């Protein structure tokens, strides 16, 4: 820097102070914001439901009826068909996540929110649902009806 450029050292000194002050303030602001941003994120919920749940007891359902049960943190739908076979599916509609129900009159699964219809195998047959419902395995253990996630082979 030349000696004849009088005001320059003064401005560069001012600039340096500005950078230090501004940088310091930004750094402290970041140190306040970081914990707050982390705080906003809720801790993950431990899903204690596991892969298997007792959905009902034998005799709870009459033929051609359905029942909502808890599968982990989400609802499941257990159906006793008029053929006497148990079926279990996810009860969360694939359209906008309403909880579906079994309609004995239609013998189909119906979502009341937007009139979506699935057949007993969970296939989306009419209305807005884009995908079939997840189907679960059902087996009997004594008089308990046990529902579990299908194991991928």
């Amino acid at each position, binding site marked *: 820097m030349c000696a004849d450029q009088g005001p320059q050292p003064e401005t560069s000194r001012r600039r340096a102070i500005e950078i230090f002050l501004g940088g310091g303030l930004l750094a402290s602001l970041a140190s306040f914001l970081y914990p707050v941003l982390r705080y906003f994120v809720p*801790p993950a919920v431990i899903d204690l439901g596991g892969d298997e749940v007792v959905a009902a007891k034998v005799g709870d359902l009459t033929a051609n009826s359905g029942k909502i049960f808890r599968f982990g943190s989400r609802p499941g739908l257990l159906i006793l068909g008029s053929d006497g076979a148990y079926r279990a599916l996810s009860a969360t509609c694939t359209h906008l996540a309403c909880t579906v129900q079994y309609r004995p009159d239609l013998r189909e699964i119906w979502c009341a929110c937007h009139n979506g219809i699935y057949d007993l195998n969970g296939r989306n047959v009419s209305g807005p649902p884009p995908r079939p419902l997840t189907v679960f395995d059902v087996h009997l253990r004594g008089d308990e009806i046990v529902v579990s996630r299908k194991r991928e082979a």
Partner: protein
Amino acid sequence: MTVFAPLIRWLDERLDLDGLIAPFKHKTVPTHRLSYWYFFGGITLFLFIIQVLTGILLLLYYRPGANEAYESVQYIVTRVQFGWLIRSIHAWAANLMIFTAFVHMFSVLFLKAYRKPRELTWVSGVILLYLVMGFGFSGYLLPWNTLAFFATKVGTEMAGQVPLIGRPMMIFLRGGPEVTGATLTRFFGFHVAVLPGLVTVLIAVHLFFVQRQGMSVPPKLEAQWTANPSARREMKFFPNFLLRELMAWYVAMGVLGALAAIFPWNLGVKADPFVSAPAGIKPEWYFLFMFQTLKLIPSKVWFVDGEVLGILGCSLAGLLWLLLPFFESDRPERTKTWITGLSIFALVYVVGMSVYGFLAQ
């Protein structure tokens, strides 16, 4: 600043920002060797802002209710990331805010800043102090731990001692004859809705008064400056004083952060209405001087119950304290020295009783 220049110009064209801040540009703050005391009101305001922000954060996870409150605070301090820090800051800032409010009040008292024309500033300030103590009292219960449970039981029981209106007042505060989950729900409402609203409005009023009347100067100095106007020293509020104030806020932030991080606030044991009060139970430090006073009054004074006498005495003292400026002389040159004497006595009494209460078994 250059980054914001176009934005500021845009706003200025529409809102006349210069006109908006013009009054602040004319505002000055007297400079003298006691000017430091002017900072404490601002620091108290800063801590209040911290309380609002951290309080909102705590509301993201806190659940009022006897079966959930303790567990939700436990969840905040153990599971939520940095939850312990947010809660610790909220608890520490509450205590620091009450402390700085007391410092601010006594500085106003000793610098005689409450004199005419600032009587209403004093009144609004003392009401703010009482409301802030109400914040402390109501917030203390929210974690629903043993200490808080008994502190609330005793505190509301004291309100119940007042003749005639005492019992209805106690039932109103408790939401029933006993301290239960209903009390927690009420205190939660007071703490997050009623008190913040009142305090925000009153702070605006308080600041408006300060703004209208400017800063007070101690009487001796005022006399000197009136006699010799060239001796008057002032600094501009904007930006000179404001930047100093911000520096004070930054220091307060540092103290608060260090205290909160190094001494995280305890959660204690969950309240159980059917266990005995733990030995050596005491209220928070800012209620200690009243607690100790009540302890020292004999159970019967002449024919009046000691408790009733103590509570009526405290209420009367609180009311007179609120009206203190109206006992001061109207004429600035004839300040009442007994008020300064009373202030010294009050300070010594509050500090002495607090220390005594802290040490007493």
